[in-house]
């Protein structure tokens, strides 16, 4: 297992599936260029699960769309490198990308209703993928579609294949999306908030499903979420993003036991938890995320950070490895040094 991201230009070890280096995506806006993803580098092994965590505007969705090559061309600039098993995706012609989509790299989106075709039966949406990419005949494609729907846990799959998306619940639609994404056996699945908007009991089902499918197929996955709870027990490593940059990247357990970047710590402390007593005062992060069109110099988190100094306000901290732990990277001038657990000062009842 390769924990540390390989330096740019290096193809990585034999087990490396994805190598992202100095990725930067900029949108033209009326107010000027907005850098949504900046200087992102990491690599992913075959079969590995990476959690990408961030709040809105952190760049997590733009990052996976940049990797997939799914951003609109006009007004969008992506630079840097995304190598999937040695094949460069940034700047690749759309035909080349299309050949990789579904078969080697696939994506599940947050809102299945808007990603499914509302006027096509869900079975046909799966067979379409199979017929285009795997050149299956009509009958074989149909049989495989029903088999896939069964694999993603849809009851009476042959019957449900004839349903339109609107006739299915949110959880069922997300299962259909997963069936489509997995139809051609990709090596890498990008899952962008796949359970946001679903109820907790359904979320648990979908996360279990993704995990089961991933381990039986040996597929790598990037699981994007705003919820540290979703990635805490289901990932090998976690990458935390803030204002378009990676601010911390570590193996999952190490991240939780030894948070170095104050933002990661603050994000955890502001999350209400079931194991806290009622009326526990949350440690909210004051202020709000920065303007990405006209960013201040220095660390983007500095204006909200308890530990910020003049250096933080003037110089962007580079993502560097812990001196004792090459797998743990963080971007901070004043990293937290001691293992930190989420302990919020508790207040006895208000009333």
């Amino acid at each position: 297992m390769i924990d540390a991201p390989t330096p740019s230009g290096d193809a990585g070890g034999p087990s490396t599936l994805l190598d992202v280096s100095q990725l930067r995506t900029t949108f033209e806006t009326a107010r000027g260029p907005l850098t949504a993803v900046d200087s992102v580098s990491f690599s992913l092994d075959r079969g590995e699960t990476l959690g990408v965590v961030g709040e809105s505007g952190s760049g997590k969705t733009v990052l996976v769309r940049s990797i997939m090559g799914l951003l609109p061309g006009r007004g969008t600039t992506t630079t840097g490198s995304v190598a999937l098993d040695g094949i460069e995706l940034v700047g690749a012609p759309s035909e080349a990308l299309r050949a990789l989509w579904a078969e080697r790299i696939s994506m599940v989106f947050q809102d299945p209703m808007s990603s499914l075709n509302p006027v096509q039966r869900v079975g046909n949406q799966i067979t379409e993928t199979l017929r285009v990419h795997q050149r299956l005949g009509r009958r074989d494609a149909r049989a495989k579609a029903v088999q896939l729907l069964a694999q993603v846990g849809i009851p009476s799959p042959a019957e449900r294949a004839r349903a339109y998306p609107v006739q299915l619940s949110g959880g069922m639609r997300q299962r259909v999306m997963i069936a489509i994404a997995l139809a051609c056996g990709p090596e890498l699945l990008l899952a962008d908030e796949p359970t946001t908007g679903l109820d907790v009991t359904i979320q648990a089902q979908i996360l279990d499903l993704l995990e089961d499918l991933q381990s039986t197929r040996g597929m790598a996955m990037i699981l994007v979420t705003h919820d540290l709870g979703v990635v805490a027990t289901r990932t090998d490593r976690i990458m935390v993003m803030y204002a378009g940059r990676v601010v911390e990247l570590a193996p999952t357990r190490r991240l939780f036991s030894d948070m170095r970047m104050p933002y990661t710590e603050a994000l955890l402390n502001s999350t209400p938890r079931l194991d806290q007593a009622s009326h526990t005062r949350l440690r909210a992060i004051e202020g709000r995320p920065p303007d990405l069109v006209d960013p201040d110099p220095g660390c983007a988190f500095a204006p909200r950070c308890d530990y910020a100094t003049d250096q933080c306000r003037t110089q962007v901290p580079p993502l560097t490895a812990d001196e004792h732990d090459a797998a743990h990277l963080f971007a901070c001038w004043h990293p937290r040094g001691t293992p930190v657990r989420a302990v919020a000062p508790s207040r006895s009842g208000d009333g």
Partner: protein
Amino acid sequence: MADAVREAPLLSVRDLHVSFTKGGHTVQAVAGVSFDLQAGETLGLVGESGCGKSTTGRATAQIIRPTRGSVTLGGVELTTLRSGRLRKERTRLQMIFQDPVSSLNPRRRVIDIVAEPLDIWGTATGTERTRIASEMLEAVGMDPALTAQRYPRQFSGGQCQRISIARALCMRPEVLVCDEVVSALDVSIQAQILNLLEDLKRDYSLTVLFIAHDLAVVKNVSDRVAVMYLGRLCEVATSDALYASPAHPYTAALLASAVEPDPDAPRRHAPLDGEPPSPLDPPSGCRFRTRCPRAAERCALEEPQLRAIGPGREVACHFPLAGDDGPPTAD
């Protein structure tokens, strides 16, 4: 808290029913819900989408009129009041919604949005109106000098939610009904708003019905929690007791489904298969029985009623979990 709750409740909801007619079918969105709010307490109402929790909140606030049942606020029956008198009484009970941006008029300035209830009721005009609205903005953590003359679009979701709260507090209501007020917000902003609600509850002696789907959020703000499934209440208990030892199998399943930001949290497989049945055709007897691991014949025949199983603790289940494994006993 438990000792202070023996007086008459400030808000009392009894046997609340709300039905909608859809394509010739009648959906019972709320099918006989009863609860009390003691002055000064926060009752959390938690459940999954479609369980009727928002409808319960709206029917409590009389934004939609219940089909049947009673809602009394300080002894006044709201369900039979006609519009003029109802509007007057309703200033004592204010509601805040999930989407703060769409619940604010984009063409009005912040100060006018906050002061709107004062204008409607003619409570205050001129400098007094500005003073009250500015005080409310300050109470929600916004500087009136910087914000009063601006428009909602110039603010983030979290700030718009603060503006909605300021507007709701303007008439000094006794009861606040919060419907998923933090679900659209980022975690760091959500924590700010939850802390703000706790502060305001104390400073303005508010009584709160807090409706949300997020179990951890509900636990954080609530003194007591009611769990809802398919139009009925499953369980009502003090917040810490309910989370420590759920008595209803549905509560237990909800808690087991929740994810915690802790890599050492026990890994459990999704405890519930399938999805809730359609409210158009709810199961006979207990509405949860089709997904319940403890369901028995009796559950299909007889609908369990909410009954006390301990101090401050009620459950609607023939075979509650409540601590021991022995045969369930009433009381």
